[in-house]
């Protein structure tokens, strides 16, 4: 009979919220969630932000982030109710029986200490092993997780290794004290896709080889499908559906689960490429002040009016730098940019007000792109005033029209950004860009910070607005699913160069160059066994070469 490792019964979690201008009130984050986990198995917790998945994960260490409190239910680990253990009992449990792998290893490691000291800290502090033995175990784990130079990487400081490596070191840190349960809290979300696949494979192998039980928390169903035995779908702190991995992916019962499984479903027909471009970037090379390294090398792309050019690449590929060059924030060192048939001054200060108006921008973090002390009306009204001199009733009317266009209707004009959801904030930013009546909007990772269903809504809105207004988008993203959904043409960037460029149908069709192939094949697919398939395929190709 399988042994039960973790048994959560009727878990209720509350927090105190402080809404602006109102007295504080208690809100329930998790409403009576129950599940069990057998030894050596993996349970995937999946849901959008606010679903309570991290909160539930941390509750199996009896830990509440911020003012979060566990107010009801039982958490049985190895046959003990850990909520009744008291502070001393919890300390004995944390870091030994249950360990934690955080989303951002870069923030979760102490910057002032070398990695090895942090990896073996609990093992030493609990007297489980001597220093030499613990270090040997850590080195073994480093090797198991496929880290380069496993013997010496422990001497390095967190800032000296890459994000993907750091995430593996954190996994080694979690496995070092031989725990029974590891909580993986979005361990690959912050990584590039080509890095994610390696880390995911390393984590899966480590779970398998050490026989540890795991809770795997993520918002990406395709990722969790690769590592889990069971999946629990959460929404607003309630269980939507709970079943085996296969059942959830292949035969979802609930509408919400079905929506998650099929979320990447926008279909966008490619437009005719043979039109004179509105934006033309020719042989642009750029470097940051005081450096000799070219972040952009000889970049040439065209964008026809009313169409979408997707710039795809991983962090460090130069895609955001290209946006900075086009907007004039970083003047190009060489090359030229023509816009609507005229040459654009490379430097922002040399551009006319009309140049500025016709080229707008939307950013990844809608939160920080708006003044928190201004109402939606002020935010959207500013470009109306600045570019068109609208005032008073006229301005208000136009703001309302724009709000209707972004499907936000009445009652939002007087709100402050803090009173809007993530998707609504991004909509307001879109309205602000649209208010200037631009010919081109640069969208810099505008959906990356949003939940998949919300992101889908934003993409649909952008496509509708393009059809209505004929505005062109330069769409910067690392997410290939987004690209498929929205692009007419694609430029794949790698190390500052355009690796592959052309209409969507050409770029996404074989034969591929090596990098595009790696990039495309690394995007998790919503099917069981995808990870093994890809890795086997790569191994065969590697052996063939």
């Amino acid at each position, binding site marked *: 009979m399988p042994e039960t490792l973790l048994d959560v019964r009727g878990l209720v979690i509350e927090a105190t919220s402080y809404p602006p201008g109102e007295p504080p009130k208690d809100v329930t984050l998790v409403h009576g969630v129950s599940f069990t986990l057998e030894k050596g198995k993996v349970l995937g917790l999946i849901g959008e932000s606010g679903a309570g998945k991290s909160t539930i994960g941390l509750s199996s*260490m009896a830990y509440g*982030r911020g003012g979060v409190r566990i107010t009801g239910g039982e958490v049985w680990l190895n046959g003990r109710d850990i909520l009744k253990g008291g502070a001393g009992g919890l300390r004995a449990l944390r870091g030994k029986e249950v360990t934690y792998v955080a989303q951002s290893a870069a923030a*979760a490691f102490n*910057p*002032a200490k070398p990695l090895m000291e942090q990896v073996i800290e*609990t093992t030493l502090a609990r007297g489980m092993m001597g220093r030499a033995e613990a270090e040997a175990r850590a080195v073994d784990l480093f090797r198991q997780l496929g880290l380069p130079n496993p013997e010496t990487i422990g001497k390095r400081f967190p*800032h000296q290794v890459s994000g993907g490596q750091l995430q593996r070191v954190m996994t080694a840190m979690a496995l070092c004290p031989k725990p029974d349960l590891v909580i993986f809290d979005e361990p690959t979300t912050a990584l590039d896709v080509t890095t994610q696949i390696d880390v995911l494979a390393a984590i899966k192998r480590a779970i398998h080889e050490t026989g540890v039980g795991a809770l795997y928390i993520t918002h990406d169903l395709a990722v969790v499908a690769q590592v889990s035995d069971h999946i629990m779908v959460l929404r607003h702190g309630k269980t939507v559906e709970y079943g085996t991995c296969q059942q959830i992916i292949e035969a979802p019962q609930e509408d919400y689960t079905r929506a998650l499984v099929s979320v990447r479903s926008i279909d966008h027909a490619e437009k005719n490429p043979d039109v004179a471009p509105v934006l033309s970037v020719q042989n642009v090379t750029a470097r940051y002040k005081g450096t000799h390294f070219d972040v952009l090398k000889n970049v040439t792309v065209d964008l026809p009016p009313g169409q979408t050019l997707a710039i795809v690449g991983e962090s460090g590929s130069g895609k955001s730098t290209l946006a900075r060059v086009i907007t004039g924030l970083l003047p190009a060192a060489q090359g030229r940019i023509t816009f609507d048939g005229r040459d654009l001054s490379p430097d922002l200060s040399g551009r006319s007000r009309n140049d500025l108006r016709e080229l707008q921008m939307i950013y990844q973090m809608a939160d920080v792109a708006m003044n928190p002390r201004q109402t939606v009306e002020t935010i959207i009204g500013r470009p109306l005033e600045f570019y068109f001199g609208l005032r008073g009733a006229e301005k208000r009317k136009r703001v309302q029209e724009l709000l209707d266009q972004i499907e936000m209707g009445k009652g939002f004009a007087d709100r402050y950004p803090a009173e809007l959801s993530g998707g609504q904030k991004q909509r307001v930013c879109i309205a602000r860009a649209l208010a200037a009546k631009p010919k081109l909007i640069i969208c810099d990772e505008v959906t990356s910070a949003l939940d998949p269903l919300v992101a889908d809504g934003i993409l649909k809105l952008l496509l509708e607005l393009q059809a209505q207004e004929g505005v062109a988008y330069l769409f910067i993203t690392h997410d290939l699913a987004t690209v498929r959904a929205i692009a007419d043409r694609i430029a794949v960037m790698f190390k500052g160069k355009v690796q592959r460029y052309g209409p969507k149908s050409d770029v996404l069709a074989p034969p591929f160059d090596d990098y595009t192939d790696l990039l495309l094949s690394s995007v998790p697919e919503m099917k069981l066994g995808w990870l093994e398939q890809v890795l086997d395929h790569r191994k065969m190709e590697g052996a063939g070469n």
Partner: protein
Amino acid sequence: MVHPVIKLVAQRIALGLLLLLAASVLIFVGTQILPGDVAQSILGQSATPETLANLRQELGLNEPALTRYFSWLGGVLHGDLGNALTNGQPIAPALGKRLLNTLFLAACAAVIAVPLAIILGLVSVRYRNRWPDKLISAVTLATISVPEFLLGYIVIFFLAVQYRLLPSLSTVYDGMGFGDRLYAIGLPVIVLVLAVLGHMMRMTRAAILNVMQSAYIETAELKGLRPFAIIARHALPNAVAPVVNVVMINLAYLVVGVVVVEVVFVYPGMGQYLVDHVSKRDVPVVQACGLVFAGVYIGLNLIADLVSILANPRLRHPK
């Protein structure tokens, strides 16, 4: 390729020297525009215009300011601070003795105050918003709020007059034993510790609380470490830079800000020396004292900068 830390350190030292030079200009100009006339104050009311003119000639007061500045600076660079106008004696040996006394007093106060402040800061964080934190905050706030001379008289009243534990006059002389010296300066040390403790403790508390918000502190908590181990081992090393800065400012204050305390306890340090000679308009002595004070300030802040640089693992261990 030069290690970036060496480059930064060299830059800071060069900047410190430049700052010291600028301070010497300010001190010189400042003493020139002071009202009053040395010759007048030496000779008193009975001086005739002729004797005044002779004395000015003798003291070199008629030379152009620029010439006097460079001859003064040249002397300083050779270790010659000039002669006091009032008694004609060289300044350096007299000032050196006073400076040693002041440094001794400051060092004794620092040896107690710095570790105490940091430990109290750690304790405050461990028990934040609970009674130990509130008690420590209340007491240290009270001691920085009371003026030092009043603190001085309070400790004299209790420790010297009521209980006769320590002498109320901090008399020291050449050839005095180390133990006797410590005994003599007991009361001013207590006053100075109370005066600087609050700033350092509160800064330590604030800096560590700031670090306690970091994700890696949550990692440490989820490792099941003891609260004090988390604060001392994971938070403190990341709060070194702001703590060292405020410690150094307070150490500088211990050297240059002790005038009142030295006067209260009649301690023969720099402060008393400076006050005496300001009242006599003895410009070379005032300039020398100013330069020494500036040097102490700049030097200690330079050390704070260097420690902050060295405490940053990104600079110590570049990629």
